[in-house]
């Protein structure tokens, strides 16, 4: 029972809005929760910034598929958001049930980044859905799956990394480690995690100074990022803005 008590201290939260919800992100969150045998909380954020903009008299929506513009308003946008929220909730519950984990779902209004960063400060992992890359991103066998790990002293990175390596085990994997101290336990952990399973993993180590350049040029090239919740808020906001992939905020 003591062990269970410890296990229940961990929680996984998945936060997404209408533009960042995807089944892939839900799967990642479920996988993460399942690996820790913990509960999963889904959080759909009705982005008030977006509602404000759609309330403006001249606002048009441009279709991602057809490139055509069409008028929109708050009411229509809310309907659209609630439709996405329903899909989110249904997918979350179905996937969680399939993996036999408990889950809950909440619908809140606010600014996505504020709520995403501030809600459930005690959650071990908060996964933020991010607007996916523009256009269709090639996902051939030959393209490696890229994981960005921005190092810090967070203790729970190993579990997140383990889940991601397992998730991409059929692909080549590129792990980019930023700001890793020499002799860091993270590198040793990585070597241990990949030993013997035949995975083709390459490791790139960069100093913290090169992070802005990396995000500017390659921010949209990652498949997932592991970032510490303990980063400074401004830094964290910049990182999140530069990335187009799900981000796992680690406590």
């Amino acid at each position, binding site marked *: 029972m003591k062990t269970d008590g410890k296990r229940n201290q961990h929680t996984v939260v998945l936060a997404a809005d209408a533009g960042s919800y995807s089944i892939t992100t839900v799967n990642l969150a479920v996988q993460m929760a399942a690996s820790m045998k913990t509960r999963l909380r889904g959080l759909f954020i009705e982005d008030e*910034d977006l509602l404000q903009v759609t309330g403006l008299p001249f606002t048009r929506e441009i279709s991602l598929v057809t490139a055509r513009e069409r008028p929109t308003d708050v009411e229509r946008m809310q309907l*659209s958001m609630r439709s996405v929220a329903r899909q989110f909730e249904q997918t979350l519950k179905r996937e969680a049930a399939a993996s036999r984990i408990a889950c809950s779902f909440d619908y809140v209004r606010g600014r996505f980044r504020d709520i995403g960063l501030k809600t459930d400060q005690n959650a071990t992992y908060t996964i933020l859905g991010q607007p996916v890359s523009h256009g269709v991103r090639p996902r051939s066998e030959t393209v490696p799956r890229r994981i960005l790990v921005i190092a810090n002293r967070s203790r729970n990175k190993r579990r997140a990394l383990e889940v991601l390596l397992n998730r991409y085990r059929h692909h080549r994997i590129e792990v980019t480690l930023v700001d890793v101290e020499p002799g860091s336990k993270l590198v040793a952990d990585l070597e241990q995690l990949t030993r013997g399973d035949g995975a083709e993993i390459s490791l790139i180590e960069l100093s913290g100074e090169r992070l802005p350049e990396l995000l500017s040029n390659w921010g949209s090239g990652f498949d997932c990022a592991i970032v510490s919740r303990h980063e400074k808020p401004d830094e964290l906001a910049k990182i999140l803005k530069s990335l187009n992939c799900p981000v796992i905020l680690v406590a």
Partner: protein
Amino acid sequence: MTDRKIKALNARALYQTCDLKQFDFKTTADLEPLDRPLGQERALEAIEFGVDIEQHGFNLFVVGDPGFGKNELVRQILSRQAQADDSRWDWCYVNNFDQPQQPRLLKLPAGMGQKLRLDMESLVEDLLTSLPSSFQSEEYRNRRHEIEQELQDRQEQAFRKLDHEAEAQGIVIMRTPSGYTMGPVVDGHPLDPQEYAKLSSDAKNRVEEIIAELQRRLQEIVRDMPLVQREHHQRIKALNQEITQHTVEQLIAWVENAYRDQTEVMEYLKKVKANAIKDVDAFLPSEQSGEADNIASRVAGFYAYGINVVVDNTDTTGAPIVFEDNPTYQNLIGRIEYLSQMGTLVTNFMLIKPGALHRANGGYLILDAHKLLTHGFAWEGLKRALKAGEIRTQSLEQMLSLANTVSLEPESIPLRVKVILTGESRLYYLLRGLDREFTQLFKVSADFARSAKRDRNSVRDYARLIAAVQRDRDIRPLERASVGRVIEEASRLAGDTGKLSLHLGEMLDLLSEADYWAGKARRKTIRLQDVERAIEKQDYRQDRYRELMQEQVLRGIKMIDTDGERVGQVNALSVLQTGGYSFGQASRITATARLGRGGIVDIEREARLGGEIHSKGVMILSSYLAEQYAANQPLPLAASLAFEQSYGMVDGDSASAAELCVLLSALGEIPLKQSLAITGSINQLGEIQAIGGVNEKIEGFFDICEKRGLIGGQGVIIPAANRAHLMLHKNVRNAVTAGKFHIYPVERVTQAMQLLSGLKPGARDGRGQYPKQSFNFRIQQRIEKLQRMQRQFMQRGARDENAAGKGERE
């Protein structure tokens, strides 16, 4: 017309024994086997000619009944001819990569078809292993990665640039559930409608202009996305083809080297190369089935690169000789099979199955004409192929335009084949008469003789033929007397003392059964008694129906008299056949005669139980009667003839002599001896002509007489011309020797009447009258009586008419 006594035949005339003195061997083991067909010189020459000549349409029809060794002889000749001909080819169907519905044809030297098939299987296996390796190479990965990254970056940068420009102008681009939208931002926060309303008109205009411009550019970026995707796809495809081409060319080079002098194969390999490069994805493992050990099963799925060897001459020597025992349309022309997939019938070039014509191409095809003609469309299909000189594999549905499903149209195979049809003469003449194309396509006929002349040479050859069969079938050697008996039986089967039956099947059966009985008696050779026993048992096994018929007579159910005399009644003879067994039986024919003008009524004909030939016989006897007895006066006769207790068809004219005799008996009221039976046909001149089955007929009547007890005067009257056909059973011969049974050969009906009535025919005197003791006198008297009666009737009639006329006038 003579009155001399008619002599019965002596026993020697009833059977042509085989002179054993002409044989200088003890058993057939001492004889050199006959190495050529006996008595079939004409057929042999025709077959050799037909097989050798190479002109179009000189196919062969071998005419003859079953059992005469047609197929065996044809095979022997073909085997010799085929050895000299080494122009064998393999024929293969391959995929037509441009038009899959029209498979291509490859003609290859013998044995090369299978080699190419195996080479292509190896090639596919190599492609399946080598291509994925090429695509997993570092070089390929890097180049593909570069392309993908470049295009991805181009898209991202376009958005990013627009995003930065928007931000610089105080505008935020936001994602909606289905696209993008834009709005003004102040201090990092989008303006709400109230804040926006507070802006000056100029500020609002400026914001809207900026947003309109940004939206236009965003639309351009979104519109470009499919083009970027297309470019991505094309560049990846080009890269894949470059990598594939290199690998495919390397792998296919060794196949090309092996077939460098085969133009058709080289053309095909060129297409294979192009298609493999184009269709490279098929060779790459999918995520689900990427295991290397799955290669073997995957090879089977690549049928498009397979070789369908429809004719494989790998292990054959000489020209092919094919005997198709079941010549259906499909078995001759080949067929296209279908597979059921998801409820739909599909096919491909690998499902083209060859027919006998494919296998026999370049050689010889032997077919049974009867089987060929009884299978729907097989004859038409064969003719079409022979006329066109090519095999076009087409289903019956296609040929008859009944099929609506998509099927194949395989390239036609050039046909060079000699077809040998075997069949009965009836079929041959039917085809000649009814099918114009037949004579154009089958210009040579080889007619197998049913019998050979029996002379000293042929008898010796027949003995050697027996020796050949004995060795070939590995049966015991036959002793000299046994050989003689088999030869005598051959004459009996031929139905002619001067002939030998060439029915090898029957001879073989007899030898096999004699061997069986010799074995039962633990003898090392076949003796005379073994042959006799075999013949006896053969007859016995088939004799049940004859016995039943005979029993009916002996019990008096079927009425046949064998002694005494009767007016208007005679014993005729006929032959019945049950399967291959024939036997004779006696039939009673009766006649009545009276005054009238109706001529002769054939009751069988009136009852529609008489055949045309039988009717002809009755008409002939009517003519004879009129000419003989009433040449210058009317014949006021009404007579009728009937086969008593006959309930089936009566045909043939072999009873016409009996019918004439019984008619004369009825007319002249002359009793006929019932101890005699008569067979023979007559002509208008009263001559008796030969008939068939004379041995069976005599034996049929003899058996009844013997069962009732031979009384001395019994016998059979036969046409004199049938003396040459007598090969009677031993018991008949013994009875004749003992004077208890007699065979009378006659040439004229008057002789038959003399025997039957015991009266001489007599000759007309100067007044045209016959002697009083002759049967002709009695007939003449009766006819004159009838004529007088007729005149009296006519005179009375005239008086009655006159009296009636006078009365009317008065």
